[in-house]
């Protein structure tokens, strides 16, 4: 699906998919794309989308509509056209390009395909005969990619059911030999990082998203009662190796506790958890290897 990218001073504000046949642009709130700027007329312009083609039409605006630096009345939008409205810019991304660069409709392009050496050569020769002999290998490869994509799409057209369930029979293997890991509740902070991974680097990975509330646990009993441990890493193990170990995982959906090893599973609010990951709520009380601790979310 084609889309518009709204930006001001090089800052991207919004991505707008062109889902409707008519997408209106203007200052007034009833427009599909409202741009609250005095340089924009109340009803400034409209984009009419028919199948894969989009047309931009100026609706008699005071300051006019400019595409790629040229004022227009009516314009057939091409990929990467930039529409200027006062300080705002709308970049048009056509259907094919939108499917290739993002959004949910690129599934086919992501499928694994084979690229044979013969296809690379063929594409390279095509480029040469077309007069692009000086073109770098990059261009040849890109052409090969496109050709391969096209041929794969063609050969991929097959029908009929040949149902064959994939043999997914995971081997059962839960409790194993006790691990020797310095994960001990008496030393919560280093225990979480047995191999000296700096806390900052894992936090920067996708698992630690900004905007997600940071969780922490505070020990309620034992020798270190009162101590607090922030759960910044995607994975934090707690407990005594060989006795009882659980892992706290930080995921987009929140924090979860999962039993790792030991005969007994940890309890949350007095209830023993199952084998599956257990979602943690603010102020849940966990008991693990004889130590009580409270999970809470930091503001």
């Amino acid at each position: 699906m084609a889309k518009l990218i709204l930006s001001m001073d090089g800052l991207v504000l919004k991505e707008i998919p062109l889902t409707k046949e008519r997408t209106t642009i203007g200052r007034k709130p009833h427009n599909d794309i409202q741009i609250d700027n005095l340089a924009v007329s109340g009803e400034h312009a409209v984009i009419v989308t028919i199948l894969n083609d989009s047309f931009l039409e100026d609706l008699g605006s005071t300051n006019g509509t400019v595409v790629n630096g040229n004022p227009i009345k009516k314009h057939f939008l091409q990929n990467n056209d930039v529409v200027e409205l006062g300080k705002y810019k709308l970049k048009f991304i056509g259907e094919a390009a939108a499917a290739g660069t993002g959004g949910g409709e690129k599934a086919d392009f992501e499928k694994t395909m084979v690229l044979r050496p013969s296809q690379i050569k063929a594409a390279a020769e095509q480029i040469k005969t077309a007069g692009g002999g000086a073109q770098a290998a990059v261009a040849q490869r890109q052409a090969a990619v496109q050709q391969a994509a096209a041929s794969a799409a063609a050969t991929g057209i097959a029908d009929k059911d040949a149902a064959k369930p994939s043999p997914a029979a995971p081997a059962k293997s839960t409790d194993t030999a006790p691990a020797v890991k310095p994960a001990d509740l008496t030393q919560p902070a280093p225990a979480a990082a047995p191999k000296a991974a700096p806390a900052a680097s894992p936090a920067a990975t996708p698992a630690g998203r900004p905007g997600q509330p940071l969780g922490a646990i505070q020990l309620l009993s034992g020798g270190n009662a009162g101590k607090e441990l922030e759960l910044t890493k995607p994975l934090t193990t707690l407990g005594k190796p060989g006795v009882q170990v659980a892992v706290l995982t930080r995921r987009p959906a929140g924090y979860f506790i999962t039993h790792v090893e030991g005969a007994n599973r940890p309890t949350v609010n007095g209830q023993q958890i199952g084998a599956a990951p257990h979602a943690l709520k603010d102020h849940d009380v966990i008991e693990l290897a004889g130590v009580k601790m409270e999970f809470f979310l930091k503001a």
Partner: protein
Amino acid sequence: MDLSQNLEIATCTDPGMVRSHNEDSIAADPVNGLVVLADGMGGYNAGEVASGMATTVIVTEMRQILANAKPYDVEGAKNEELAARMVRDQVLKANSSIYQAAQTQSQYAGMGTTLVVCLFYDNRMLVAHLGDSRLYMLRDENFSQVTRDHSLLQEQIDSGIITPEQAKKAQHKNLVTKALGIDPTVEPEIHEYPTKSGDIYLLCSDGLCDMVEDEDIAMTLQTLGKGNLKLAAQHLVQMANDNGGRDNVSVILVRVLREYPGRRGVMGKVFGWLK
């Protein structure tokens, strides 16, 4: 020799968050120390047919062969160990089965699959691969990629056209330059490495390494691998899905629990008892 006491194997496979069906196939034969992972491609169901054929053919054929011969047996005339040839022959067998099916049945036209096979024997591991499914290794605290993808992207990185950083954002991650079942014959890349007890080997489809950063994979194996391998496998799949799960995700983890020497002299046996 039964290796199921020496190796711990955990597997997990999932269609992911976007795809409706799973074109990956995995198989493990703990007794023979064999694991196989394949990521199929082709229209409709053909992808899972190709990957299913690859894992089934290789596991069943290898089982038959290993019943009569040991991978470390030496072939008299060439003075070569059998392992590499055993694996290579079975990969070729799977290749021709898939190729034949694709040629004779129109609904399978163009199907193929990537492949990673690992055979553990005599304190060593032999890996054969095709395409962009990978083998990683965690030894002590070092996590490294063992196989190199047969992909357009890897070729571009090798020839210096793009940097590994650019590769992460590249669009054509999905183009492999070698695969099983596409051509009448194929040459798998085969290497052999010594193993150490405590090593964890990870076989995965591109659904994992495209969605999850290497350091997150490493952290998961380091924190959960020793305590609960099965949970580590599940958590890897979970992370791929949490990050979008754009592709099928499959994971096989193999942990070396203790050494498994193949050939033993008298002294070796004594040491074996003492351990």
